[in-house]
């Protein structure tokens, strides 16, 4: 869940109420956001610099860190958060976002060159006219871009936002893709000009920007936006030019979003303009920009049109479980920024047409509208009911069987352990004197060596557990019932779990007979009633992890289902165990 940092006092001022922290937390809880942390500007800086926490000065501005739902991009800045809460509290009407009425031929144009398709095919733009920044608004403007980049833009890979002082550049603009050495400009925060390939080298050591280089690094052409004087506006998704940088004095802002995903680019552009058109001369009015595609067609952005969604009232009431009259539904939806256009009645079925504003890209289905009604109604106000369906409880036979085996082995005096499925390559193979025979599942992207392989035996888990408890009083008798995973071509995913029992005996002597006694006990109790014999037998085996001539395989109904024996001293030494051990592992799935 993304977190938004807002000044508490500024937020409360906008909400027109001086909440106590408890009151504000309660409001957040009902609305579905969460006050995650309360801090101050200097505390944040101190934390960034890894300084010790000093006392917080009383006059410092208190910052609220608020967690918002991951699909509510309209809550990622103070402006949007305050707007949504004011409407929720009934203090504001739902704003109408509109594009200014300019004839098509007078629109600022962006020409898209066909080469952009090779690297970053989409661009959408808009202009905020007559905007007034102050320090807080400016910071919030920059911050929202950051938040969008981190979330919906997937770290700029899907969408990258560039904002420019329109007064410093001259349209029409052109969106091109050129080879890196052809692109040369002075980037933001620099005084000399770089070619794009120089920049890619230069930013390798930049803590913030190095994370984005991979997006275009291997492309033969890099995306670039020029104005009519060939001034570089930006090298998306890496950096803007210094020339067109916005400042507190900027009055007209040109916003461009380049993307590999057009839907998300449109959403991102809409978020930027709906949030900050609040500060325009004409409040909530945005000047559109014409994007002229290489095939000559034109698209005009932003698309602030309202979408209408038909929602059955019975679906709302029926899914929430509360009977709500139409007027109440309309009132509740209004609190969530959803305006009801009209009511319909057809064949005795009532429905409403709800208009979805461009800020609510999260609404995909009438079910999302139903959720907003439920939130506005209050989840905690919904009367609790009981599902009426009559069903029978039941266990999976394999799991119930496993529990019976567990009970039997613990009755035999063994202590149950629970180890991890993931282990290192070494632990699964070489430490057990085994080679990778290709039947184990291997992880492609382990974060550390602990998570390289999905175990195909329970042995290393028990030996690791013993190692951590080797000073415990002897004898040590431990066991685990759990799944291993084996490559299995007959299964849809190509691998299958196998339920195993493993037991380990450790003492000053090997305890082979103890383990064999346990095997015999298990084989005795799994015999089916009236079966003539238990249908199992032991044969000498020759596995590397066991001591030669001190090991057996277990066969059941003609199938080898497990092994037991004295653990090989070389295996013990790999696990730094000094005492002799006997070990058993058996496929209990075959015994079911």
């Amino acid at each position, binding site marked *: 869940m993304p977190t938004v940092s807002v000044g508490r006092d500024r937020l409360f001022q906008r909400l027109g109420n001086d909440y106590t922290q408890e009151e504000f937390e309660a409001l957040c809880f*009902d609305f*579905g956001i*969460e006050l995650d942390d309360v801090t101050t500007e200097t505390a944040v800086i101190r934390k960034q610099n890894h300084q010790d926490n000093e006392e917080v000065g009383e006059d410092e501005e208190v910052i609220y860190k608020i967690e918002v739902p*991951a699909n509510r991009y309209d809550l990622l800045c103070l402006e949007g958060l305050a707007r949504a809460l004011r409407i929720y509290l009934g203090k504001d009407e739902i704003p109408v976002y509109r594009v200014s009425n300019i004839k098509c031929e007078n629109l600022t144009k962006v020409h898209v060159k066909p080469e952009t398709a090779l690297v970053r095919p989409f661009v959408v733009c808009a202009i905020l006219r007559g905007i007034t920044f102050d320090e807080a608004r400016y910071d919030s403007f920059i911050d929202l871009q950051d938040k969008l980049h981190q979330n919906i833009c997937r770290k700029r890979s899907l969408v990258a936002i560039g904002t420019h002082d329109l007064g410093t550049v001259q349209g029409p603009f052109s969106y091109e893709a050129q080879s890196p050495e052809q692109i040369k400009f002075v980037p933001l925060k620099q005084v000399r000009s770089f070619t794009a390939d120089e920049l890619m080298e230069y930013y390798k050591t930049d803590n913030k920007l190095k994370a984005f280089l991979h997006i275009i690094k291997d492309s033969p052409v890099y995306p670039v936006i020029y104005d009519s004087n060939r001034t570089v506006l930006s090298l998306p998704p890496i950096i803007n030019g210094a020339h067109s940088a916005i400042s507190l004095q900027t009055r007209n802002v040109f916003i461009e979003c380049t993307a590999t*995903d057009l839907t998300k680019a449109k959403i991102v552009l809409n978020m930027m303009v709906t949030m900050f058109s609040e500060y325009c001369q004409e409040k909530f009015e945005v000047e559109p920009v014409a994007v002229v595609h290489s095939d000559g067609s034109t698209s005009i952005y932003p698309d602030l049109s309202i*979408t209408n969604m038909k929602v059955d009232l019975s679906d709302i009431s*029926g*899914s*929430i*479980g509360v009977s709500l009259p139409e007027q109440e539904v309309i009132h509740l939806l209004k609190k969530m920024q959803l305006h009801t256009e009209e009511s319909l009645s057809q064949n005795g079925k009532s429905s409403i047409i709800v208009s979805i504003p461009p800020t609510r890209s999260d609404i*995909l*289905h*009438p079910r999302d509208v139903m*959720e907003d009604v*439920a*939130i506005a109604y209050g*989840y905690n106000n*919904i009367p609790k*009911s*009981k*599902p009426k369906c009559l*069903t*029978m*409880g*039941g*266990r*999976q036979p*394999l799991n119930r069987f496993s529990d019976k085996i*567990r009970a039997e082995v613990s009755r*035999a*005096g063994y*202590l*149950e352990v*629970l*180890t*991890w*499925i*993931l282990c290192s390559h070494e632990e699964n193979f070489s430490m057990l004197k085994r080679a990778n025979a*290709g039947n*184990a*599942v291997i*992880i*492609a*992207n*382990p974060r550390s060596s602990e*998570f390289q392989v*999905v175990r195909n035996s329970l042995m290393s*888990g028990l030996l*690791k557990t013993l*190692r951590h*408890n080797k000073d415990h009083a002897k004898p040590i008798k*431990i066991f685990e019932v759990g*799944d291993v*995973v084996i490559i299995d071509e007959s299964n*849809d*995913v*190509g*691998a*299958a*779990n196998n339920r195993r029992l493993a037991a380990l005996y450790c003492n000053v002597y090997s305890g082979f007979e103890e383990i064999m006694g346990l095997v015999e006990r298990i084989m005795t109790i799994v015999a089916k009633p009236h079966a003539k014999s238990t249908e199992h037998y032991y044969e000498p085996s020759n596995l590397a992890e066991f001591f030669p001539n001190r090991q057996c395989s277990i066969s059941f109904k003609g199938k080898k289902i497990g092994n037991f024996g004295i653990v090989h001293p070389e295996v013990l030494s790999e696990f730094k165990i000094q005492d002799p051990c006997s070990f058993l592992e058996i496929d209990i799935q075959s015994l079911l």
Partner: protein
Amino acid sequence: MDPAKAAENAILEHLQSHDEIPDSQKFAASSGFDHGVVENVVKSLCGSRTIEANEIKEERWALTDEGKSYVDSGSPEVQFFRALPSEGEILMKDLEKKLDPTVYKVGPSAAVVNKWVTMRKEKREVRGSTKPETIVYVSRKINDVEDKVKDLLQKVEAGEAVDEKDVDALKRRKLVIPQTWRGYSIRKGPEYVLVREKAATDLTREHIQRGDWKQLKFKEYNLSAQVQPIQIGYVQPLLEVKEEIQNIFLQMGFEEMPTNNYVESSFWNFDALFQPQQHPARDSHDTFFLKVPSTTRQLPEDYLERVKQVHQSGGYGSKGYEYDWKRDEAEKNLLRTHTTAVSTRMLYKLAQQKSFVPKRYFSIDRVFRNEAVDRTHLAEFHQIEGLICDRGLTLGDLLGVLEDFFSRLGMTKLRFKPAYNPYTEPSMEIFSYHDGLKKWVEVGNSGMFRPEMLLPMGLPEDVNVIAWGLSLERPTMILYGIDNIRDLFGHKVDFDVIKNNPLCRLGLQ
């Protein structure tokens, strides 16, 4: 007789006629018992309160081996003196053969110092040598001598007082060394008897057969002694809690799902749940993808097509995510990040049946996240999941079933917070008021599965699925007050933690 029994008798007899045995060492020496034996008897008699004993501890002198040898045969100077004839001289050389080497070495000089003997030296020519030879004759000066050294050594051995100067002399000659001395002063105890009855320690088969348990006195138990641990087997605490939660589900009519498939395709883990392909959870930072087997071999084609459509262009009343859905992404194998992948398979199976039957399903099993690990998060943990699938289920039903479920876990005060989850709508986080922590803590997530997830499966339109999930580890850690997850789960768990863990009391209220 057994020396211990003899010593016991001697002590008790002595106390019959005396108030006290002031020194157990002296007593042992005079009665001919080894003090070690006497010491054990004293302890045993104190245990039955027959006697009372005070320990005496002091630094005393003890004889060295050399000193001990002189107690019997006399000091070397006296032995030397006695070896001389009562009258006349004797050649020193002849004495050397008669005496012990130590005595021959030490005795003569001490006897000369004591003025007991005279030495006369005479030079004699040796044939074939220019150097004359010195020969020594010894004779007694006095008729008889007193062996003071031997007397002193005897006194030291018996623990009697000896003059400090004399001790110093003995010490210089290395005949005595200092030693910590331990003994007891002994008096009658409250339960004093002349002959102690031996208290029986245990009731045996012989006692019952002979019937003598009626007369026998049984030794008191020492209840403050440490209790001997018994040899038994133990079950893992986390799995104990798992079992109780399973019981809750069973009582509520839920059927367990088969979750023994850790390897899953992205399709069943994400796509079928209407989780878009660019969703952050599908990042390699969050999910374990597989090198072997890297892709899934088989997917249900018709269903896959419907899933693709609903992502790309919507349908079933949804506008979809409007992006280019890729089959390659869906085929990527992974370790399941949630058991909801299994729920999805189960619901799909349910949708393929001829007529719809309502179901309540549950599972508790392992899931995997490629996230940073810390004291409360591991790369693998257990997810508890419950779901109900039926026509016309409501959000109120979800609240009601959560109330039932969590109250059985001892969480009776619940509140619900709106939340976001890609495959549930509405989504609710579940908070419970914790009396110990005095605050609301998040205990789980819940919601109704999205129509975009259910309808492509082929479930009827009026069927809703309400579901919830939580981890097994978190409530268990809260239950047992464990603050590091590795103390509960994994190979670093201490056996003593497993052995001493109290019963899981869930379901006993």
